[in-house]
């Protein structure tokens, strides 16, 4: 089967055009503004249960939370009322909606954190908001258990909500980009992310239902494993979204329970699987589909092999040693970023393996960060093809992942995206090295942030990714996390739109230069 390049799919436009017109009847037409309005408004509403929880549990901040809710609703509502979707949704409109939606979510998180006084400065609040939206486990808050229950709930909901946003992006935006969203005819390298329903709305509904179900299962698991009910719910929200924030200092290790850790391992492992793929398996009941997916096989092989290697390298074959290795590898691959043991448990080799796993990430169209297995497989395919081409000048060969082939346009898109990520990561290493104190932890932290995992692999204190940084360094971290979550192409696309006039001027100047040269 051929995977056509994604841009061919134009149906998405038509679907988006109609589905929301019934709901939003504002005067002005702007997709990004509407997204921002909806995010803020919904964010405001989402704070209400947190406030209620604080009231019930007699937490410290019911009023501050209510205030934050009021602020967000007040800003969001007018936008929701005044704006409707444009008649035709352009690709650029989709980009901007995604980028500004994520930014709005980040600011909403920042507002709540500021209102309750969980952090002291604006930079910290934004950092915390970014960590939430990007589902990164890093945090400025040193001990989350000191936060009130309501705040904890809001934080968990922030990460979970970001998961929903990612689902929307997977269904609506990424197919346009050809970078691993749900495709009419593929576009990611594997069939793991083919569309489930002819309409985008149907796809969102199905995936969200699966997401909710999955979260519920994890919560039940945690509860049965002996976690207090409220913690189980909060923890399931951040596990399902591969967020990784916890309610205690010392991450999940603080619960000190083998059963809980195994539940988390299972949850994180499943979270790394492509959602539409999981949905299809559940719906058809054909477990054999799992083995037919090349990407899934790659994922399982990667995870299992790294379990073994990690445990072998740590040299600790006791039950707790195995658990520590398995947990760390799964947490890294799914870019959740929870941890149970101090990284000292693993030697340098183990740490570099963890960094590699974080960089690779889970399957395409899952909620994890990183390069994704499918793209790594495509890269292997490209290498293979170029070797063949070099040996046989005239040979024609398609890039292949398992049984499916990948079109050149998609290959270009994937390679381009990986290259951009690599460039950003390089600047990340450099910037974090300026603020850090050794090479390995700078690289570990930059990779971890860009892949939205969180812990600073290679540094003695994994929770210190953000706290160890100066404010300027935190801004760098915010940029890395947001780029990692939104994915780089939309962001650069929006920047490209924003800087168009400027670049046009530069180009004009250059143009005259070229003409001069021609005359000479």
């Amino acid at each position, binding site marked *: 089967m051929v995977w056509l390049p994604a841009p061919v799919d134009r149906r998405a436009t038509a679907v988006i055009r109609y589905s929301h017109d019934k709901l939003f009847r504002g005067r002005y037409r702007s997709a990004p503004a509407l997204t921002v309005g909806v995010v803020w408004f919904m964010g405001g509403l989402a704070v209400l249960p947190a406030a209620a929880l604080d009231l019930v549990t007699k937490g410290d901040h019911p009023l501050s939370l209510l205030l934050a809710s009021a602020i967000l609703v007040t800003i969001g509502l007018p936008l929701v009322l005044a704006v409707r979707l444009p008649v035709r949704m352009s690709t650029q409109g989709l980009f901007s909606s995604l980028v500004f939606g994520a930014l709005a979510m980040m600011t909403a998180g920042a507002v709540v954190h500021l209102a309750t006084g969980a952090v002291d400065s604006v930079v910290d609040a934004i950092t915390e908001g970014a960590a939430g939206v990007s589902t990164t486990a890093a945090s400025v808050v040193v001990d989350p258990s000191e936060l009130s229950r309501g705040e904890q709930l809001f934080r968990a909901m922030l990460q979970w909500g970001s998961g929903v946003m990612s689902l929307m992006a997977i269904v609506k935006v990424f197919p346009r980009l050809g970078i691993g969203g749900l495709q009419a005819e593929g576009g990611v390298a594997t069939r793991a992310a083919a569309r489930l329903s002819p309409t985008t709305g149907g796809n969102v509904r199905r995936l969200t239902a699966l997401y909710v179900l999955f979260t519920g299962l994890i919560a039940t698991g945690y509860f049965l494993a002996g976690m207090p009910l409220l913690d189980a719910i909060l923890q399931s929200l951040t596990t399902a979204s591969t967020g990784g924030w916890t309610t205690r200092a010392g991450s999940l290790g603080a619960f000190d329970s083998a059963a809980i850790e195994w539940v988390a391992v299972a949850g994180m492992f499943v979270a790394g699987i492509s959602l539409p793929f999981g949905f299809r398996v559940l719906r058809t009941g054909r477990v054999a589909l799992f083995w037919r997916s090349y990407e899934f096989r790659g994922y399982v092989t990667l995870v299992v092999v790294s379990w073994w290697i990690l445990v072998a390298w740590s040299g600790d074959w006791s039950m707790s040693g195995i658990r520590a290795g398995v947990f760390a590898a799964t947490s890294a691959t799914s870019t959740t970023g929870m941890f149970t043991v101090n990284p000292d448990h693993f030697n340098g080799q183990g740490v570099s393996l963890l960094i590699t796993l974080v960089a690779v990430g889970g399957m395409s169209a899952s909620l994890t960060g990183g390069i994704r297995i499918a793209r790594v497989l495509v890269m292997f395919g490209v290498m293979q093809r170029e070797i063949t081409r070099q040996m046989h000048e005239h040979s024609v060969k398609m890039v292949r992942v398992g049984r499916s082939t990948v079109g050149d346009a998609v290959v270009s*898109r994937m390679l381009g995206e990986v*290259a951009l990520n690599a460039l950003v990561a390089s600047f990340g290493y450099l910037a974090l090295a300026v603020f850090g104190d050794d090479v390995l932890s700078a690289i570990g932290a930059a990779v971890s942030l860009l892949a939205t995992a969180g812990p600073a692999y*290679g540094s003695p204190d994994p929770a210190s990714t953000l706290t160890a940084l100066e404010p300027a360094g935190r801004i760098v971290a915010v940029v890395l996390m947001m780029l990692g979550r939104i994915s780089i*192409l939309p962001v650069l696309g929006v920047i490209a739109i924003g800087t168009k006039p400027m670049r046009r001027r530069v180009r004009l100047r250059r143009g005259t230069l070229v003409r001069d040269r021609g005359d000479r």
Partner: protein
Amino acid sequence: MTATRAPTESLLQRRRRYPSAATHVTGIALMIVAVGMAVSAVVGFIDSGDDRWTDVWALLGSAAISAALGAAMWWLTEVPRRQKTSVAFTTVTWSWVAVSVVGALPFLFAGTFDWARVDDALFESISGFTCTGSTVIGDLSTVPKGVRFFRQMSQWFGGMGLIVLAVAILPALKVGGLELIAAEAPGPTPDRLAPQVRETAKRLWILYGGVTAVIAIALMAVGGMDLYDGIAHAFTTASTGGFSPYPASAGHFQSVTVEIVLILGMIYCGGSFALHWQAIRGDWTVYHRVSEFRIYIAMIVILIPVATVLNHDLDVGLGRRALDAAFNIATVVTSTGFGTADFTLWGPASQVLLLLLMIPAGMTGSTSGGIKILRLQVLVKYAFREITRARHPRSVSALTLGPVPVREDVVHRTMGFILLYLGATFTGGAIVTALGSDPVTGFSSAISATGNIGPALGEAGPASTFAVIPRLGRPVLMFLMLFGRLEVFPTIIATMVALRPVQRAVGVRYRRVAIRRSLPE
């Protein structure tokens, strides 16, 4: 063929020659190396003190073996008239390997390594002929002077080989670079594969030799070195190799002028020789026209102050700091690998900066290693084009370097090159790390080996040797050095060609029996 031969031809020409380009060319290379060994023996005879005779005999013995082998290979074979492109790749790979094996002999004969450490001798030799400059010799002063001179010379020969590689082989790869540069710099260019290969190589060799001479003279006249040191350092500067006959490398001289001469020399040799040739012919604007050169210079000029500032908390004066920054950036960007200050003592940011610089290294068409700036340009443009494509799904835009569009298949090959380069480096680094190095040392030594830089970070810094790498990890680095030096594809293809019989033998066999039909139901 025999039928067309004229009866007047000499007996010599009528002998049976086996058609094998790889063996023939390797023979020539071995004989050239033998000459180098003989010259080094003379140097050893004149310059060595007490161990004069070990030195001379070690070198003469190796020279004899090398010459005999080379002559036999050359004598018994001929270059077949028609050949596949892959033969060229096999040829370069095996000649480099053969020369490196022979080049390990003087170290063994002179007792630098005993025979149980034959792998270390090979490491030293490969590091020489690939112009890398990593060493496993702890104390160079115990090595006789003649052998040390040969060690310097091995890098210079490596550089000569590289020019042949760049002119004759890489254009067939379509990612080699000379053709891209040539495209950007109109005019009489040395990019034609045939029939000008010989002529082009000759010109570039003249330039290479001239540059070596100029550097040697400058080092002696300005830097105050003696003849031996001047030539020895000129050899490894021109070839961007970075060996020095002294344990403290260029730091041995404690001389600002020496360092400045070396910095300038390195920067010049990290630039494309094709460009330099054109400039010498009078077309100075070529430096301005070619974007790769502009980026190359800009990178150095911008990063020297950056590194100086990043090193602000070091306990040395501003002038020294700037000079150290300049020296180390030049040595890394050009993939030379001389050492003055130990950059593993610098702050993490400067170290990360140097590590990142090791990946692109110098210009195409130079003797430097790494991915090369030109390919990085292609990569960046490729990535940014995807932004445009994402926004305008139907846009069609050719990738251009300067005013010249790059063919799409060349772009793809370049991407394949970069992926393979980085993939191999990563794998090598992972193996070295898994064998017991710490991650920074392991991965940086792999990056340094593939980029033919020389020193790495962590424990394998300029003040240390690669003896800290686990013994099993060093063969991996040797492979990476060859892999990076020969521009990725030749090594892979040579390996695949060599493994083909095995692969065929192992592969599923299909016997000549009738095939049972599957009739449609």
